[in-house]
Protein backbone atom coordinates (compact mmCIF):
# COMPACT_ATOMS: atom_id res chain seq x y z
CA UNK A 1 0.00 0.00 0.00
CA UNK A 2 1.64 3.21 -1.13
CA UNK A 3 -1.12 5.54 0.07
CA UNK A 4 -2.22 5.90 3.66
CA UNK A 5 -5.87 5.78 4.72
CA UNK A 6 -6.07 9.49 5.37
CA UNK A 7 -4.99 10.58 1.91
CA UNK A 8 -7.21 7.90 0.35
CA UNK A 9 -10.23 9.22 2.28
CA UNK A 10 -9.50 12.72 1.05
CA UNK A 11 -9.68 11.67 -2.59
CA UNK A 12 -12.09 8.75 -2.38
CA UNK A 13 -15.06 10.87 -3.51
CA UNK A 14 -13.15 12.36 -6.43
CA UNK A 15 -11.96 8.86 -7.34
CA UNK A 16 -15.55 7.54 -7.41
CA UNK A 17 -16.47 10.56 -9.53
CA UNK A 18 -13.69 9.66 -11.98
CA UNK A 19 -11.91 12.94 -11.33
CA UNK A 20 -8.41 11.76 -10.40
CA UNK A 21 -5.43 11.02 -12.59
CA UNK A 22 -4.83 7.50 -13.87
CA UNK A 23 -1.81 7.05 -11.64
CA UNK A 24 -3.70 8.19 -8.55
CA UNK A 25 -6.65 6.05 -9.52
CA UNK A 26 -4.47 2.93 -9.64
CA UNK A 27 -3.01 3.71 -6.22
CA UNK A 28 -6.42 4.31 -4.64
CA UNK A 29 -7.86 1.15 -6.18
CA UNK A 30 -4.96 -0.89 -4.84
CA UNK A 31 -5.41 0.60 -1.37
CA UNK A 32 -9.19 0.16 -1.30
CA UNK A 33 -8.92 -3.46 -2.37
CA UNK A 34 -6.50 -4.16 0.45
CA UNK A 35 -8.05 -1.98 3.19
CA UNK A 36 -11.42 -3.06 4.67
CA UNK A 37 -11.90 0.27 6.41
CA UNK A 38 -11.53 2.32 3.21
CA UNK A 39 -13.69 -0.21 1.39
CA UNK A 40 -16.43 0.42 3.93
CA UNK A 41 -15.98 4.16 3.45
CA UNK A 42 -16.35 3.68 -0.28
CA UNK A 43 -19.64 1.83 0.27
CA UNK A 44 -20.93 4.62 2.51
CA UNK A 45 -20.10 7.23 -0.11
CA UNK A 46 -21.81 5.21 -2.83
CA UNK A 47 -24.86 4.73 -0.65
CA UNK A 48 -25.00 8.43 0.18
CA UNK A 49 -24.97 9.29 -3.51
CA UNK A 50 -27.64 6.67 -4.19
CA UNK A 51 -29.95 7.80 -1.40
CA UNK A 52 -29.62 11.46 -2.35
CA UNK A 53 -30.48 10.77 -5.94
CA UNK A 54 -33.34 8.47 -4.97
CA UNK A 55 -34.80 11.09 -2.60
CA UNK A 56 -34.69 13.80 -5.27
CA UNK A 57 -36.02 11.48 -7.96
CA UNK A 58 -38.86 10.56 -5.69
CA UNK A 59 -39.68 14.21 -5.07
CA UNK A 60 -39.60 15.01 -8.77
CA UNK A 61 -41.49 11.94 -9.94
CA UNK A 62 -44.85 13.34 -8.85
CA UNK A 63 -44.61 16.35 -11.12
CA UNK A 64 -46.04 15.61 -14.54
CA UNK A 65 -44.68 17.46 -17.53
CA UNK A 66 -48.17 18.67 -18.46
CA UNK A 67 -48.63 20.53 -15.19
CA UNK A 68 -45.03 21.74 -15.23
CA UNK A 69 -45.30 23.05 -18.77
CA UNK A 70 -48.60 24.71 -17.95
CA UNK A 71 -46.76 26.93 -15.45
CA UNK A 72 -44.17 27.92 -18.05
CA UNK A 73 -46.77 28.55 -20.73
CA UNK A 74 -48.73 30.74 -18.33
CA UNK A 75 -45.63 32.82 -17.66
CA UNK A 76 -44.88 33.11 -21.36
CA UNK A 77 -48.38 34.34 -22.20
CA UNK A 78 -48.46 36.69 -19.20
CA UNK A 79 -45.08 37.99 -20.23
CA UNK A 80 -46.35 38.71 -23.70
CA UNK A 81 -49.35 40.55 -22.34
CA UNK A 82 -47.13 42.72 -20.21
CA UNK A 83 -44.86 43.42 -23.15
CA UNK A 84 -41.97 41.88 -21.30
CA UNK A 85 -40.51 40.70 -24.55
CA UNK A 86 -40.24 44.26 -25.67
CA UNK A 87 -38.37 45.08 -22.49
CA UNK A 88 -36.02 42.17 -23.09
CA UNK A 89 -35.23 43.50 -26.51
CA UNK A 90 -34.77 46.97 -25.11
CA UNK A 91 -32.63 45.95 -22.16
CA UNK A 92 -29.56 44.87 -24.16
CA UNK A 93 -29.75 48.23 -25.92
CA UNK A 94 -29.52 50.14 -22.66
CA UNK A 95 -26.90 47.80 -21.21
CA UNK A 96 -23.56 49.55 -20.61
CA UNK A 97 -21.79 47.13 -22.97
CA UNK A 98 -23.86 48.28 -25.91
CA UNK A 99 -23.85 51.87 -24.79
CA UNK A 100 -20.11 52.06 -24.19
CA UNK A 101 -20.00 54.99 -26.61
CA UNK A 102 -22.44 56.94 -24.44
CA UNK A 103 -19.96 57.43 -21.59
CA UNK A 104 -17.31 59.39 -23.56
CA UNK A 105 -20.10 61.25 -25.37
CA UNK A 106 -21.60 62.32 -22.04
CA UNK A 107 -18.19 63.40 -20.77
CA UNK A 108 -17.58 65.43 -23.95
CA UNK A 109 -21.02 67.06 -23.65
CA UNK A 110 -20.42 68.07 -20.03
CA UNK A 111 -16.99 69.47 -20.90
CA UNK A 112 -18.46 71.32 -23.89
CA UNK A 113 -21.08 72.96 -21.68
CA UNK A 114 -18.46 73.99 -19.14
CA UNK A 115 -16.15 75.40 -21.79
CA UNK A 116 -18.98 77.21 -23.56
CA UNK A 117 -19.99 78.74 -20.26
CA UNK A 118 -16.47 79.96 -19.58
CA UNK A 119 -16.12 81.18 -23.14
CA UNK A 120 -19.35 83.17 -23.04
CA UNK A 121 -18.65 84.61 -19.62
CA UNK A 122 -15.14 85.42 -20.78
CA UNK A 123 -16.75 87.58 -23.46
CA UNK A 124 -18.87 89.16 -20.80
CA UNK A 125 -22.16 87.65 -22.03
CA UNK A 126 -23.29 86.60 -18.63
CA UNK A 127 -24.02 88.85 -15.72
CA UNK A 128 -21.96 86.80 -13.32
CA UNK A 129 -19.93 83.60 -13.47
CA UNK A 130 -21.48 80.44 -12.05
CA UNK A 131 -18.06 79.19 -11.20
CA UNK A 132 -17.77 81.54 -8.26
CA UNK A 133 -20.51 83.70 -6.79
CA UNK A 134 -20.05 86.44 -4.25
CA UNK A 135 -22.87 87.96 -2.28
CA UNK A 136 -22.51 90.78 0.22
CA UNK A 137 -24.79 92.23 2.84
CA UNK A 138 -24.22 95.69 4.19
CA UNK A 139 -24.75 96.18 7.90
CA UNK A 140 -24.31 99.06 10.30
CA UNK A 141 -20.61 99.06 10.94
CA UNK A 142 -20.12 95.50 9.56
CA UNK A 143 -20.27 93.93 6.14
CA UNK A 144 -20.82 90.30 5.38
CA UNK A 145 -19.52 88.83 2.15
CA UNK A 146 -20.29 85.31 1.03
CA UNK A 147 -18.23 83.61 -1.62
CA UNK A 148 -19.55 80.42 -3.20
CA UNK A 149 -17.40 78.42 -5.52
CA UNK A 150 -19.35 75.67 -7.23
CA UNK A 151 -16.47 73.62 -8.62
CA UNK A 152 -14.84 72.81 -5.31
CA UNK A 153 -18.07 73.48 -3.38
CA UNK A 154 -16.25 76.01 -1.20
CA UNK A 155 -18.11 78.62 0.77
CA UNK A 156 -16.18 81.51 2.35
CA UNK A 157 -17.97 83.77 4.79
CA UNK A 158 -16.21 87.07 5.05
CA UNK A 159 -16.99 89.45 7.90
CA UNK A 160 -15.29 92.82 7.92
CA UNK A 161 -15.65 96.23 9.53
CA UNK A 162 -17.19 99.06 7.57
CA UNK A 163 -14.25 101.47 7.83
CA UNK A 164 -14.71 103.35 4.64
CA UNK A 165 -17.85 103.47 2.48
CA UNK A 166 -15.80 103.28 -0.72
CA UNK A 167 -13.91 100.16 0.30
CA UNK A 168 -17.03 98.09 1.01
CA UNK A 169 -17.76 97.11 -2.51
CA UNK A 170 -14.31 96.60 -4.01
CA UNK A 171 -13.29 94.00 -1.48
CA UNK A 172 -15.93 91.38 -2.45
CA UNK A 173 -15.39 92.18 -6.10
CA UNK A 174 -11.72 91.40 -5.72
CA UNK A 175 -12.59 88.11 -4.06
CA UNK A 176 -14.88 87.25 -6.94
CA UNK A 177 -12.14 87.88 -9.46
CA UNK A 178 -9.69 85.76 -7.51
CA UNK A 179 -12.10 82.91 -7.18
CA UNK A 180 -12.96 82.75 -10.83
CA UNK A 181 -9.34 82.46 -11.83
Amino acid at each position, binding site marked *: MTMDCESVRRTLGAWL*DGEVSEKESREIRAHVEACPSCRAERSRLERLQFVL*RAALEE*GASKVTFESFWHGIERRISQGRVRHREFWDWLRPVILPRRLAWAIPVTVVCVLAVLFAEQFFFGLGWGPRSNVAAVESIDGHGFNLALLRESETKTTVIWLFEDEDEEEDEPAPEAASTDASL
Partner: protein
Amino acid sequence: MAPDVKEEQRVIVEPSDWELVRKCQTGDVGAFQELAAKYYQKVFMVILGILNHREDALEIAQETFYRAFRKIREFRGGSTFYTWLYRIAVNQCIDFQRRQRRAPAEVREAIDELLYERGEHGTDPYDALEGKEVMSRLLAALNDLTPDHKAVIVLRAVEGLSYKEISEILGCSEGTVMSRLHYARKKLQEKLAHFL
Protein backbone atom coordinates in the same frame (compact mmCIF):
# COMPACT_ATOMS: atom_id res chain seq x y z
CA MET B 1 -28.72 24.78 -41.67
CA ALA B 2 -26.05 27.38 -41.71
CA PRO B 3 -25.92 28.88 -38.21
CA ASP B 4 -24.65 32.40 -38.01
CA VAL B 5 -22.81 31.53 -34.80
CA LYS B 6 -19.13 30.61 -34.90
CA GLU B 7 -18.84 26.93 -35.79
CA GLU B 8 -16.15 26.13 -33.22
CA GLN B 9 -18.27 27.59 -30.45
CA ARG B 10 -21.24 25.33 -30.89
CA VAL B 11 -19.57 21.96 -31.32
CA ILE B 12 -19.93 21.12 -27.64
CA VAL B 13 -23.71 21.54 -27.69
CA GLU B 14 -25.54 18.30 -28.32
CA PRO B 15 -26.71 18.44 -31.95
CA SER B 16 -30.34 17.77 -31.07
CA ASP B 17 -30.28 20.42 -28.34
CA TRP B 18 -28.64 22.87 -30.69
CA GLU B 19 -31.28 22.33 -33.35
CA LEU B 20 -33.98 23.00 -30.81
CA VAL B 21 -32.18 26.04 -29.42
CA ARG B 22 -31.92 27.48 -32.94
CA LYS B 23 -35.65 27.04 -33.41
CA CYS B 24 -36.34 28.63 -30.01
CA GLN B 25 -34.26 31.60 -31.06
CA THR B 26 -36.70 32.22 -33.87
CA GLY B 27 -39.54 32.22 -31.34
CA ASP B 28 -40.61 28.57 -31.73
CA VAL B 29 -42.35 27.75 -28.43
CA GLY B 30 -42.87 24.12 -29.50
CA ALA B 31 -39.11 23.62 -29.75
CA PHE B 32 -38.71 25.09 -26.30
CA GLN B 33 -41.37 22.72 -25.01
CA GLU B 34 -39.26 19.82 -26.29
CA LEU B 35 -36.21 21.11 -24.46
CA ALA B 36 -38.28 21.62 -21.31
CA ALA B 37 -39.64 18.06 -21.55
CA LYS B 38 -36.10 16.75 -21.79
CA TYR B 39 -34.68 18.64 -18.81
CA TYR B 40 -37.53 19.61 -16.49
CA GLN B 41 -37.20 16.64 -14.17
CA LYS B 42 -33.49 17.03 -13.55
CA VAL B 43 -33.72 20.79 -13.19
CA PHE B 44 -36.53 20.28 -10.71
CA MET B 45 -34.46 17.72 -8.78
CA VAL B 46 -31.51 20.10 -8.54
CA ILE B 47 -33.72 22.94 -7.33
CA LEU B 48 -35.55 20.68 -4.91
CA GLY B 49 -32.20 19.59 -3.49
CA ILE B 50 -31.15 23.18 -2.93
CA LEU B 51 -34.45 24.60 -1.66
CA ASN B 52 -35.81 21.50 0.08
CA HIS B 53 -39.35 22.72 -0.39
CA ARG B 54 -41.53 21.26 -3.10
CA GLU B 55 -43.86 24.15 -3.85
CA ASP B 56 -40.99 26.63 -3.91
CA ALA B 57 -38.91 24.26 -6.05
CA LEU B 58 -41.74 23.90 -8.55
CA GLU B 59 -42.18 27.64 -8.75
CA ILE B 60 -38.46 28.29 -9.20
CA ALA B 61 -38.06 25.48 -11.73
CA GLN B 62 -40.84 26.96 -13.87
CA GLU B 63 -39.33 30.41 -13.44
CA THR B 64 -35.96 28.97 -14.54
CA PHE B 65 -37.43 27.68 -17.80
CA TYR B 66 -39.33 30.88 -18.36
CA ARG B 67 -36.13 32.88 -17.94
CA ALA B 68 -34.28 30.48 -20.22
CA PHE B 69 -36.96 31.03 -22.84
CA ARG B 70 -36.64 34.78 -22.54
CA LYS B 71 -32.85 34.68 -22.67
CA ILE B 72 -32.47 31.97 -25.29
CA ARG B 73 -31.39 34.48 -27.93
CA GLU B 74 -28.35 35.23 -25.77
CA PHE B 75 -27.28 31.56 -25.81
CA ARG B 76 -24.52 31.19 -28.39
CA GLY B 77 -23.52 27.58 -27.83
CA GLY B 78 -20.34 28.34 -25.91
CA SER B 79 -21.35 25.71 -23.36
CA THR B 80 -23.80 22.84 -23.32
CA PHE B 81 -27.44 23.88 -23.15
CA TYR B 82 -27.96 22.08 -19.86
CA THR B 83 -24.92 23.73 -18.23
CA TRP B 84 -26.42 27.07 -19.23
CA LEU B 85 -29.81 25.98 -17.92
CA TYR B 86 -28.43 24.76 -14.57
CA ARG B 87 -26.60 28.04 -14.16
CA ILE B 88 -29.91 29.89 -14.46
CA ALA B 89 -31.49 27.40 -12.04
CA VAL B 90 -28.79 27.79 -9.38
CA ASN B 91 -28.86 31.59 -9.67
CA GLN B 92 -32.64 31.54 -9.33
CA CYS B 93 -32.32 29.45 -6.16
CA ILE B 94 -29.73 31.77 -4.66
CA ASP B 95 -31.84 34.84 -5.51
CA PHE B 96 -34.91 33.18 -4.08
CA GLN B 97 -33.18 32.22 -0.84
CA ARG B 98 -31.86 35.74 -0.48
CA ARG B 99 -35.38 37.14 -0.88
CA GLN B 100 -37.06 34.60 1.31
CA ARG B 101 -35.50 33.36 4.47
CA ARG B 102 -37.69 30.55 5.76
CA ALA B 103 -37.90 29.80 9.43
CA PRO B 104 -36.35 26.41 10.33
CA ALA B 105 -39.77 25.13 11.46
CA GLU B 106 -41.23 25.77 8.02
CA VAL B 107 -38.40 23.86 6.37
CA ARG B 108 -38.92 21.01 8.81
CA GLU B 109 -42.60 20.88 7.90
CA ALA B 110 -41.76 20.89 4.21
CA ILE B 111 -39.43 17.92 4.64
CA ASP B 112 -42.00 16.02 6.67
CA GLU B 113 -44.65 16.70 4.05
CA LEU B 114 -42.33 15.46 1.32
CA LEU B 115 -41.68 12.26 3.25
CA TYR B 116 -45.28 11.72 4.24
CA GLU B 117 -46.24 11.81 0.58
CA ARG B 118 -43.39 9.50 -0.25
CA GLY B 119 -44.66 7.07 2.39
CA GLU B 120 -48.10 7.14 0.82
CA HIS B 121 -47.07 6.41 -2.72
CA GLY B 122 -43.70 4.89 -1.80
CA THR B 123 -41.85 3.41 -4.74
CA ASP B 124 -38.50 3.21 -3.01
CA PRO B 125 -35.99 1.11 -4.90
CA TYR B 126 -35.03 -0.54 -1.63
CA ASP B 127 -36.70 -1.33 1.69
CA ALA B 128 -39.43 1.27 2.13
CA LEU B 129 -39.13 1.83 5.87
CA GLU B 130 -35.36 1.97 5.96
CA GLY B 131 -35.30 4.11 2.86
CA LYS B 132 -37.77 6.56 4.28
CA GLU B 133 -35.78 7.00 7.44
CA VAL B 134 -32.49 7.53 5.61
CA MET B 135 -34.07 9.96 3.15
CA SER B 136 -35.65 11.89 6.00
CA ARG B 137 -32.30 12.23 7.74
CA LEU B 138 -30.56 13.04 4.49
CA LEU B 139 -32.92 15.83 3.50
CA ALA B 140 -32.70 17.32 6.98
CA ALA B 141 -28.90 17.11 6.92
CA LEU B 142 -28.78 18.56 3.42
CA ASN B 143 -30.69 21.53 4.68
CA ASP B 144 -27.91 22.38 7.10
CA LEU B 145 -25.41 22.86 4.28
CA THR B 146 -24.81 26.23 2.65
CA PRO B 147 -26.44 26.79 -0.78
CA ASP B 148 -23.00 26.49 -2.41
CA HIS B 149 -22.36 23.09 -0.86
CA LYS B 150 -25.90 21.93 -1.60
CA ALA B 151 -25.59 22.99 -5.24
CA VAL B 152 -22.34 21.06 -5.70
CA ILE B 153 -23.51 17.81 -4.16
CA VAL B 154 -26.93 17.94 -5.82
CA LEU B 155 -25.56 18.72 -9.29
CA ARG B 156 -23.19 15.80 -8.97
CA ALA B 157 -25.85 13.41 -7.67
CA VAL B 158 -28.60 14.34 -10.11
CA GLU B 159 -26.80 14.78 -13.37
CA GLY B 160 -23.43 13.18 -12.71
CA LEU B 161 -21.85 16.35 -14.05
CA SER B 162 -18.07 16.57 -14.27
CA TYR B 163 -16.24 18.90 -11.89
CA LYS B 164 -15.48 21.10 -14.88
CA GLU B 165 -19.16 21.43 -15.77
CA ILE B 166 -20.10 22.12 -12.14
CA SER B 167 -17.36 24.75 -11.93
CA GLU B 168 -18.79 26.43 -15.04
CA ILE B 169 -22.27 26.43 -13.57
CA LEU B 170 -21.19 27.84 -10.22
CA GLY B 171 -18.49 30.13 -11.54
CA CYS B 172 -15.75 28.68 -9.35
CA SER B 173 -12.63 26.56 -9.88
CA GLU B 174 -12.62 22.77 -10.22
CA GLY B 175 -10.54 22.64 -7.04
CA THR B 176 -13.31 24.48 -5.21
CA VAL B 177 -15.87 22.02 -6.56
CA MET B 178 -13.75 19.14 -5.30
CA SER B 179 -13.26 20.59 -1.83
CA ARG B 180 -16.93 21.60 -1.49
CA LEU B 181 -18.00 18.11 -2.51
CA HIS B 182 -15.61 16.55 -0.03
CA TYR B 183 -16.87 18.81 2.75
CA ALA B 184 -20.55 18.32 1.90
CA ARG B 185 -20.21 14.54 1.77
CA LYS B 186 -18.30 14.48 5.02
CA LYS B 187 -20.99 16.56 6.75
CA LEU B 188 -23.80 14.40 5.40
CA GLN B 189 -21.97 11.23 6.38
CA GLU B 190 -21.44 12.52 9.91
CA LYS B 191 -25.14 13.20 10.31
CA LEU B 192 -26.15 9.89 8.76
CA ALA B 193 -23.48 7.90 10.54
CA HIS B 194 -25.80 5.07 11.63
CA PHE B 195 -27.77 4.90 8.41
CA LEU B 196 -25.14 4.53 5.74
